[in-house]
């Protein structure tokens, strides 16, 4: 049986791991390669590296980091952050990334999704969507959630699927950093209206939030950062609890 995936997310700045609380305060949580290795041994199903650096060197630094991760880690990993062209993706895949995630650049240039899917295959193209509720409507936001757009979450998600995305990573800006649980209503609607896997992100605070997002949110995978980085939740305990709730996991 296909299992539900637990995905620690490592925010990367200049080759180091950081995690923003509500995307503002940054705290250092270690070396990415070491952390990746620890997580894969602890039972993580997949890893996401999100590069938030904005230096001239970022492309080279990130490619080098991807290569070092691929050398060490025996589970799949996705790389995102600032990817805006076919060339960007080519470099990351050549260096050993399994999937890439595009976000703002896909909103600005939706054709990019078609181009990436045609060249590399849908299976390695994740589209990340950050959204927030404004007057009870879910609106897509850009640049790490700072810039609102007129796009409706569900319309955009459907368009992304039609253009060839292999999966969607949905972050609720309303929930991210709150540790109050995932945006399960929006997640289950995405899961029902689309036929590609949905990764839940934003709001993980305790083990029962994961149980809820897999049952009520119908998510295929759940992503979190600080609860793992600061050892508030151990992946093995989390997966045991999921199994006890009849949620299929790899144990």
């Amino acid at each position, binding site marked *: 049986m*296909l299992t539900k995936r637990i995905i620690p997310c490592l925010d990367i700045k200049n080759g180091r791991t950081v995690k923003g609380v509500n995307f503002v305060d940054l705290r250092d949580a270690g070396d990415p390669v070491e952390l990746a290795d620890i997580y894969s041994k602890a039972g993580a199903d997949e890893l996401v590296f999100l590069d938030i650096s904005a230096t001239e060197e970022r492309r080279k630094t990130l490619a080098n980091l991807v290569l070092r991760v691929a050398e*060490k880690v*025996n589970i799949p990993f996705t790389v995102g952050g600032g990817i805006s062209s076919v060339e960007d993706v080519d470099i990351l895949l050549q260096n050993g990334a*399994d999937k890439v995630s595009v976000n703002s650049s896909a909103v600005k240039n939706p054709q990019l999704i078609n181009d990436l899917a045609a*060249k*590399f*295959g849908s299976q390695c193209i994740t589209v990340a969507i950050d959204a927030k509720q404004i007057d009870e409507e879910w609106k897509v936001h850009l640049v790490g959630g700072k810039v609102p757009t007129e796009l409706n979450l569900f319309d955009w998600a459907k368009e992304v699927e039609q253009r060839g995305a292999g999966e969607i990573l949905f972050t609720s800006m309303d929930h991210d950093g709150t540790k109050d649980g995932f945006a399960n209503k929006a997640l289950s609607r995405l899961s029902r209206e689309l036929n*590609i896997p949905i990764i839940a992100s934003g709001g993980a605070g305790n083990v029962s939030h994961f149980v809820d997002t897999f049952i009520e949110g119908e998510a295929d995978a759940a992503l979190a950062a600080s609860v793992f980085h600061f050892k508030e939740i151990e992946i093995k305990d989390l997966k045991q609890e999921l199994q006890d709730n009849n949620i299929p996991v790899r144990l």
Partner: protein
Amino acid sequence: MKIVIINYGAGNIQSIKFAIQRLGYEAVLSNDPEEIKAADKVIFPGVGEASSAMGKLKDSGLDTLVPKLKQPVLGICLGMQLMCNYTEEGDTEGLGIFDVDVIRFNHGVKVPQIGWNQIESLKCPLFDGVTEKDYIYLVHSYYAPVTKNTVAKTYYGVDYSTALQKDNFYGTQFHPEKSSEVGEKILLNFLSIK
């Protein structure tokens, strides 16, 4: 032992090279027919879209070489699919090593299948020491139905082939290089085949 990973420009092959390195062996990437023929073990990777991958294979003239190889050959993911007769993806003729047609998932499941699933009905030296229902990592939209060449099965809306074998040819739909310790065992088993 000389291990060659066929490099025909199809996707992420670093991961396989690194996985073999972690097992204590070195693999070379090559598209040179002589070097491939001389190898003890050949790995035939593949990520991406079937018709363009097959096009690249033909451009490098390796489409006629691969079916004639005598040493153990392991096709991974799309590599395995291209070793079949045909795939619906891009209406693509395959190498015809495994006598089966690859088709798209269409059983009320999400496509692509992404994640960890279980392998069972294991019957081939690739799976020595691997337990029934162990977990492996998959990411794919098309699958090979169960056939006489099936040596491992997985359920995703339908029972299908997650590994195929015929003579010296082996294929896995899953990514052993990304399947943690289970995958490492399977890769090591392949490298140990005489």
